[in-house]
Structure formats: C-alpha cells, structure tokens
C-alpha cells in the first residue's frame, strides 16, 4: 500500500515512533475499528454529520501503516476495515464509473458516517443513563421490607370411594385367615418395650439386641422380623428415655445395647 499520506518508514523519527507506539498501545483501549474511527473522527473537531470520511480513511490507513512499521500485530477486523477504507477512498477519489454496479462511494461514506454517529449517540445515551439518579445510590428502597408470610394450610380430603376401598382392602386381606393369626406373627413395640424394660436393669454389658427377642420368635422368619423390628424400636425408645445406649461397629454389624448408668440412682 503506497499512500502519499503515509510517512516514509525509514524517516520515522524517534518521537514519531513513540507517538505511534502510544497510539498502538492505545488500541487495547479501543473497542474495535469503529471505536477507533470514532476517536479519530473526534480529532477533526467538527459535527459528526459533517465529518470528512475521506480524511478519516486517510487517518486510519496511516495508523495501520504505522502499526505495520512497528511490527505490531493488529487484530483481523482492524485490517479488514483498513482494506475496506482503502477501497472506499479510491471510490471517493476516482470519478464515478457509470458502468460500475453497486453503491456509490458517497453511499458507503454516508453509511459509515451514520454508523459513527449512531455509535456516538449510544455512547452519549449510556452516559446520560448512568448519570441518572440510581436506586441504591441516589434514591432508596425500603430498608426493612416485611416478608410476605406464606401461610400454607394443607387440607386433607378423601372420598367415600377411598373410604370404601380402604375398608375393602383390609377386609379382603382378612377374608382368608382369622385375625388371631395376625396377632400371632406380630410382636408389637409395646410388647417389646414391656419386655425390655424388665430386662434392661440387668444389661450392664454390651449385648446384641438379638438376645432380647422373646422365646420362640427367632425361628419363623416372619415372626423373627416382627420381633426384631419391635425390639429395635423399643431399644431406640429406651435410648430416648436415657435408660440405654446403643452402638453398632459398622453397617450390618450386630447392634449392641447396654444399660445407661444413671447418676441419680
């Protein structure tokens, strides 16, 4: 790219190099080529609507040349913009070719001017927005909001059908065997508790709760299960009452029980 506006690379003075470097370092502060163009446009110190796009294109291209001279990597979009501006510049400088299709150089320039003006307008709007009174800084919400108390009420309901089915369920289950059979295989927690209350006084040593099962309940698996469950539940109850302690050394290990020494006694 040989442009009359671009200073000869070899003739760059130290101060020029520094200035260029400063500019380049500043690139980091720019949000893309459009932002850079907008900043360059401001140096023209005219209304954005009267900006010289041609001059702006020259400024930008000269900046890119300097950056290249300093072997500074520019992001691709800066280079794309440079290429486009070079194209635009040629369009603006050459007399329009009537055979050429597409938008004229003026159209393209006008659109770029519009983009710059729009970006500037958004910047100004952003600044005005941030300058407004803000919640939590200039005006305030209630400092002690009272929470809406959620009162949740659960209403239970059942239909007659539920009731009848429930009853039917029980009766059907019972039709094939008398009630007494049930009782036979169920060792209630109350029974277990009664039993254990009587025995706990003698349990000074850690003892497997299995040994507290009533006589004759360990053989039949159904009875064993019921008695074990009841005995375990009763043991928990005793612990809760502060009369016993339970321990288990690991999962599925025997559960050991012993009397809790009470200081009152």
């Amino acid at each position, binding site marked *: 790219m040989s442009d009359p506006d671009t200073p000869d690379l070899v003739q760059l003075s130290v101060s020029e190099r520094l200035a260029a470097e400063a500019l380049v370092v500043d690139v980091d502060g720019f949000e893309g080529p459009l932002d850079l163009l907008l900043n360059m446009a401001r140096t023209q110190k005219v209304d954005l609507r009267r900006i010289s796009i041609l001059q702006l294109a020259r400024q930008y291209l000269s900046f890119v040349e300097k950056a290249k001279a300093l072997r500074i990597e520019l992001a691709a979009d800066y280079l794309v913009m440079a290429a486009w501006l070079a194209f635009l510049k040629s369009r603006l400088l050459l007399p329009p070719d009537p055979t050429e299709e597409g938008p004229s150089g003026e159209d393209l320039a006008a659109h770029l001017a519009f983009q710059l003006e729009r970006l500037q307008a958004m910047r100004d709007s952003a600044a005005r927005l941030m300058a407004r009174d803000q919640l939590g800084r200039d005006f305030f919400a209630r400092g002690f909001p009272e929470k809406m108390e959620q009162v949740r009420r659960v209403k239970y309901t059942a239909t007659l059908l539920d009731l009848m089915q429930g009853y039917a369920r029980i009766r059907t289950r019972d*039709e094939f065997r008398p009630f007494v059979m049930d009782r036979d295989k169920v060792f209630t927690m109350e029974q277990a508790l009664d039993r254990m209350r009587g025995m706990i006084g003698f349990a000074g040593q850690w003892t497997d709760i299995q040994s507290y099962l009533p006589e004759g309940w360990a053989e039949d698996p159904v009875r064993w299960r019921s008695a074990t469950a009841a005995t375990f539940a009763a043991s928990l109850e005793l612990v809760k009452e502060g009369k016993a302690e339970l321990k288990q050394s690991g999962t599925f290990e025997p559960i050991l029980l012993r009397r809790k020494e009470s200081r009152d006694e």
Partner: protein
Amino acid sequence: MSDTPEITPGEEGAPRESLFEAPVMGEQERMVEAILFASAEPVTVKELNDRMPHGCDAAEALAHLRKRYEGRGVHVVRVGDAWAIRTAPDLGFLMQRETVETRKLSRAAIETLAIIAYHQPVTRAEIEEIRGVSVSRGTVDQLLEMEWIRFGRRRMTPGRPVTFVVTQEFLDHFGLESARDLPGLADLRAAGLLESRPSPLGAPQTGEGDVDADEGMDEGQSELFED
C-alpha cells in the same frame, strides 16, 4: 417533644443551603421520613441528628412525622430507644398469603377412618387388630383434628380404653345420613370393590372376629344418633 413546629427560615428543597441555618421543619420531617424508610434497622434520635444537617431537631421532626402517620397504613413506632416505620397492626393480614393445599389422606389414615366408621365405637387396640399394624398417634390426631372422628364413651372393660366414633362433619363430608348408610361388604363386593372370592366364614359381617367391636356396634350407632 414539642408539638408546635418551629419554623425556621430556609429554602425548601435546599437542605445544604447554609451551614448555619437549619432546614425548615417540613424539610426535616421529609428527611426523617426518608431515613426511617430506607433503614434496615430502627434509628435512634441521636443517629437521626447525626445524619441530618447541622441545626436540625430530629426529635421534633419525628414528632411531626409520627402525627402525620397516625391512622395511616404504616406507623412510626418506637422500638427500644429507636424509631422505625412499620405496618399498621390492623393490616397485618395483608402481609400473609394463605394457600390451601388439598391432599389426599394417607392410606393409613383412610383405613383407620374406615375401621372407625364401620366399627364404631372402636378402641385403638381394636383398630390395630383389624388393620394388623399399629396405628400411629399422628394418624389418629390428624383425624381428630379434621374433626372427622371424636372420642366416644370409654369402654367398660379393664383399662377403660377410650373409643373413637365418627362425627357429623364426617357424615356431611361423605354425604351420609348416618354411619349405618355406609355400604356393607356385600355392597362393596357387588360394586366390584372387593374381590368376589367366597369368604371361608360365609357372608362377611362388619367387625367379624372382633368380639368387642361387634358388641359395641349397636351402642355405637345409637351413640352416634344421640347428638
């Protein structure tokens, strides 16, 4: 606290106008209002004075503000030795949102209820006997709380256990004239609610195999109609 506002000359809306002249009382009242509103905690008069421009009388401004909020939806109230704005007590109901959630009764509750309905008056031990599992306290409490069951007469047996009967609310809810209108087992079977397998004991009776329940059945029914 003085009730008469001490009007000091000063320009409205310009509280920092002068270092030496305090804002007018109306302005001071606005300030107290804003501070109390925005504070997360009650504010003492001293704090108010510290935050307001020099020469302000927070106590007096507060008195005015308090008066202004009398009878309003929020009040200026004293909390310890500090002040806060709080909802008027009579409007507390606006701060609650009640939601009613309808849930089906648990299976245990339905079964317990059914047993009470069919066998009333019935003791807890009898219910357990019929269900084959123990009845949790929570289940009975829930039914009592719903007012679907209530305590009946004590059973005249050793231990004098309490009995349970169903209530009028129960009958109303299920659209029954009386507990006697509950469909019998035969009806249940006819309705396909029971497996129609012949019972080894012949026609099933309610409360079969439960001597106590049968015994008390008539008494129970009559008791239900006493009230």
